[in-house]
């Protein structure tokens, strides 16, 4: 019965909530609109938006001594997770079956193991910084911890189901993914999508004013 629910109604609900929630969230942000800027434009806001989106991938030199761990662990986790989601063989099969209809080359098993360990290490380090750094601890909310723990559980259940020998473990992993998809649009995990317009807005604002920032 659990298999029927996970593969059936739970998956449908998760899909609807995920996409509808993201759309609602983005639309509600853009509906706010922008205050008309009466000042004369001194530069291109479009160029500024593009520049900000790219330049923010690299930390400012003055900040590096203070955020080195955040940057390194952050990239370890995000890039690792990106590679795992898109290039792990079971994920490719799933995406091909349910979404795209076509497959692509999966990464070899040894690289899957290495990337998974890097992603795990990055996530654990980031969460430890959030807990142990007194500043991060003060400004963290429950949502931040819930999101971290939920992502960790998804990764852990995926790791447990690695051998694909037991349907139950695979179902558990899918169920945790569905929980994450339902939680995603209403949490700080939306930064996965909103970082583009967020950086773009800042970059456009400065770009129009002719400020290189």
């Amino acid at each position: 019965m659990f298999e029927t629910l996970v593969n059936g109604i739970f998956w449908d609900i998760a899909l609807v909530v995920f996409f509808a929630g993201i759309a609602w969230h983005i639309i509600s942000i853009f509906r706010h609109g922008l205050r008309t800027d009466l000042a004369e434009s001194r530069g291109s806001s479009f160029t500024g938006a593009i520049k900000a989106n790219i330049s923010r991938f690299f930390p400012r030199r003055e900040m590096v001594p203070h955020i080195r761990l955040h940057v390194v662990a952050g990239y370890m986790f995000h890039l690792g997770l990106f590679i795992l989601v898109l290039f792990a063989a079971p994920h490719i099969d799933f995406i091909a079956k349910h979404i795209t209809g076509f497959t692509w080359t999966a990464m070899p098993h040894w690289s899957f193991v290495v990337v998974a360990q890097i992603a795990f290490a990055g996530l654990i380090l980031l969460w430890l910084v959030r807990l142990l750094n007194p500043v991060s601890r003060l400004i963290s909310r429950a949502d931040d911890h819930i999101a971290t723990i939920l992502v960790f559980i998804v990764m852990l259940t995926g790791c447990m189901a690695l051998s694909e020998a037991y349907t139950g473990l695979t179902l558990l992993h899918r169920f945790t993914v569905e929980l994450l998809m339902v939680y995603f649009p209403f949490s700080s995990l939306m930064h996965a999508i909103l970082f583009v317009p967020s950086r773009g807005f800042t970059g456009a604002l400065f770009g129009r004013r002719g400020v290189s920032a």
Partner: protein
Amino acid sequence: MNIARKRHMRNAGILTLLVVFILPLIPYAISAVLTPPAGSTEADVQVPNPSTVLWQDVRQRGVEITGKTQVQGVDTGVLINKTGEEWRKYRMEILVPYGAYLMGGILALIFLFYLVRGSLKIPGGLSGKKILRFTLNERMVHWFTVLIFWLLGVTGLILLYGRMVLIPLLGPAGFSITASASKEMHNLIGPLFLFAMLALIITFIKDNFYSSGDMKWLFKAGGLLGGHVSAGRFNAGEKIWFWIASIFGLALCITGLILDFAILGQGREVMALSHVIHSISAIVMISISFGHIYLGTAGMQGSFSSMANGYVDENWAKAHHDRWYEQVKNAKSKDIPVQKGGVATSGVADSRKSD
């Protein structure tokens, strides 16, 4: 009586004696003549099992033989691994029970100690003044190692004891899934422990070498046998735990890699030996970590905060690490930030320095 009659009587007597002694032996003589020697008849010949010699050689009883096959690879010339049964018996009859006795015994001792002594209080109570003991980097390394160790320890204990403990609870099918999940998690997370251990050793090794006063600390059992004992940043007990954790931890890592990546040409005997070292190291580390966890939490007032937020009470420092406390107060060490003033801040300044 005439001589002839005497001679006749003498001869009769001798004949009688001969008959009495010899006559009973006649049946034995006949039997000995008629009975064939052992092995001389068809019923007595032992026909050996023609396969006995073959299987004795296969099992390598008393002789080392490596077979030859067309298949090339590690251990392909071994038909039956004779050390496998020895390893299995060791695992089930020595490792499992004695490991449980060791871990359970230490837990019982700790519980007993707590019942008798309770939590060790700070002499003079809390002063309210804080001093920085561990930087953010040190705490990050410690807790990263702890998390990985816990994940691996729990999954490892499930693999070792699950059959005895979990099957009655979950049933065979439930345990099968649990064991499979534990094995995958243990194998995937395992290599991370190597990096955690190396980071831990590099971070804490400089303060864990022998220094004067350590032997005195040991003889006084850290003050448990009465009186105050002086100690630096780490006392002798902590140093012993550091070196045990380092040595056994590295043994765990190396044997774990041998077991995890069975593609490096290691045969079954190497794997079995690695498993023996791996399991013993794990049980020793888990057992001693119980004491470490106890002393860092319920066993000693004021200890946990050193790893939670990095600060300890000054009275705690004076009571347990007086030489280190004096060093910090006199600001002789440039690496350890000194908390000037009475009350600790939120740690913003210190976190910047420790980054």
